């Protein structure tokens, strides 16, 4: 029984050759066969990144991914191609059907890639189109299909080689509610037998269907508390880029440097804030990691507020810096 095991997974990459982003930092995950797992979270929280890693498309910085006997993170390039070919079926957010091919031919692509004869590939494609209720659309090209129909063809393509692991990236993102219902039913149906289905979404309508729900962005429950006074010596770091943040800071005295840490280890000064200005509001407000590092330029006195306390006083403050 193939079980999906992810241990201490870290993915870090450089955005635009500029600064490093770590969307996944120490993720552990265990998924049992025959289950539907939903990765839930807002854009940018690492859902697609995790799917890419599970699909052998993106190599993590550290940690391990095991699917059954296969150590995905240890596979060579050619072995990864083989893994993607035989073990994984992927349903993409934008359907990603080949526009020049008919529905039947799109489904046949993975079959032909492994050397299945044209005749057999056609028979299997038709069987799958029948399964997704599209047997009347065999010879239609993607442009002639609705969004829901295209996504069903994409699901059929993912199932072509009957892979034990199905990954679906926002499968309902481009669909109306009627089409969503069709896809939800189909996705639920896939998680049968020994098959593992992992779906990334920010569509909470999928949650009741799931066997497991993984919150990709941590929900910060910061209890209301009185403002905190913080004193920093020159050069002392208040918070680092990439850390989750709980408080918004207002400078009472001194100067604070807001720095962007680049991939090459250098720091770029984004802003120099002084007394009366605030910074670090976005992370506690929207639940994303800090996008810059805050460091004291000289002796600094700050007051830290929770997001709610900050909102109450927001109109009184001037300025602001990266969160």
């Amino acid at each position, binding site marked *: 029984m193939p079980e999906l095991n992810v241990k201490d997974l870290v993915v870090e990459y450089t955005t635009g050759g500029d600064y490093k982003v770590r969307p996944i930092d120490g993720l552990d995950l265990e998924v049992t066969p025959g289950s539907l797992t939903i990765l839930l979270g807002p854009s940018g929280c690492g859902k697609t990144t995790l799917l890419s890693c599970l*699909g052998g*498309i993106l190599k993590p910085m550290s940690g391990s991914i095991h699917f059954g006997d296969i150590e995905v993170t240890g596979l060579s390039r050619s072995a990864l191609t083989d893994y*993607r070919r035989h073990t994984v079926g992927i349903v*993409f957010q934008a359907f*990603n059907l080949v526009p020049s*091919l008919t529905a039947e031919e799109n489904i046949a692509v*993975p079959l032909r*890639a492994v050397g299945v004869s044209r005749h057999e590939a056609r028979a299997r494609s038709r069987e799958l189109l029948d399964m997704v209720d599209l047997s009347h659309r065999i010879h239609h090209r993607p442009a002639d299909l609705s969004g829901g129909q295209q996504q069903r063809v994409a699901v059929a393509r993912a199932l072509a080689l009957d892979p034990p692991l199905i990954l679906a990236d926002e499968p309902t993102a481009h669909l109306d509610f009627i089409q969503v219902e069709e896809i939800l039913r189909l996705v639920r149906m896939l998680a049968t037998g020994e098959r593992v289905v992992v779906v990334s979404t920010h569509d909470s309508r999928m949650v009741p269907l799931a066997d497991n729900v993984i919150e990709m962005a941590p929900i910060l429950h910061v209890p209301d508390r009185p403002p905190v006074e913080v004193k920093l010596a020159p050069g002392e770091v208040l918070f680092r880029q990439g850390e989750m943040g709980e408080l918004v800071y207002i400078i009472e005295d001194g100067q604070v440097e807001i720095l962007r840490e680049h991939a090459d280890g250098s720091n770029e000064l984004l802003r120099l804030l002084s007394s009366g200005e605030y910074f670090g509001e976005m992370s506690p407000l929207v639940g994303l990691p800090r996008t810059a590092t805050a460091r004291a330029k000289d002796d600094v006195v700050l007051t830290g507020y929770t997001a709610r306390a900050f909102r109450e006083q927001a109109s009184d403050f001037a300025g602001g810096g990266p969160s």
Partner: protein
Amino acid sequence: MFLIALRDLQFRLRRFVISVVAVALVLALTIVLAGVAASLDIEVDRTLDQIGVDTWVVDSNASGPFFGAVPMNEANVEQIRALDGVTEAQPQVFYPYTLNSPSGPQSITLFGGAPGELGTPHPDEGRGLENPGEALAQPVHGMQLGSTAQIGGKSFKIVGTFHDSTMLGGIANVFVSTQDLQEIAFKGAPVITAVAISGSPTQPLDGMKTVDRADARTDLIRPLKSVKQTISLLSVLLWIVTGCIIGSVIYLSALERSRDFAVFKAIGVSNMSVLLGLVLQAVLLSVLAAGAAVLIARLLAPAMSVPVAFPTAILVLVPITAVVVSVIGSLAGVRRAVRVDPALAFG
């Protein structure tokens, strides 16, 4: 992947057809240029075949019996005929000339020889030279069989004509007697440019030397050397243009299909399959264009003012070269396709 490549061409049929036409036009020009270059050689070989001489005796300072000739005294003919190893010797005169035809001045090439002897050809129509005042000619510029032509102030009866007897890119050959040509060119002086011989002289030639057919060929081709170099250069440029057109078509295709290639890779299609699909498109484009180019070139050829030959070698080599050029031209697109990150499929 071959089916996918073909389907993609169907999907972008209009662009593919335009590309085939563009490449075909360039290849047609390439074929025509190659045909012109080939015809320059063929004309010379055909003229030498018509003259029917394998060895000439020329002045020791001459570089050939035609364009490179140095005038000799006609008395040398008897001297050479008497040499051991020489079985026959006949005077030859070569003289490029401008004919005043009804349609205006026309370049012709005059060959003088002894009527009915070595060095005077047998025409395709009519009879050979028998007497002075007769001429054999390519039937152009009013020199049709049985007509009378005025050349250098003399009247010539055209007693024989050729299907193809031209040189230097369509300039007509005219064969007259040595005596007639000496009157036209040298005011009747006993001047010749070479002695056509049979056999091989075994004695040393005083102030003279022998040249063979290969030397004579080189002598006739020499004025065309720069023309042929220019044609070769233009051909290379046209091949580069062909490669660029095919390359840009394939590169654009690779750019537009980046997402498709990413999806293919994400679902386990190998790089080799992606690569072969694009190369197949390039090869198909070049083969279809080469076929169309042959047809276009054949249609263009009659409109050219110079002879255009279509030797089999050209018709075989052009498609083969087109395939090679297309594969080279498609490398940038192929490289791009192969380097597409499968993660792009999630984008």
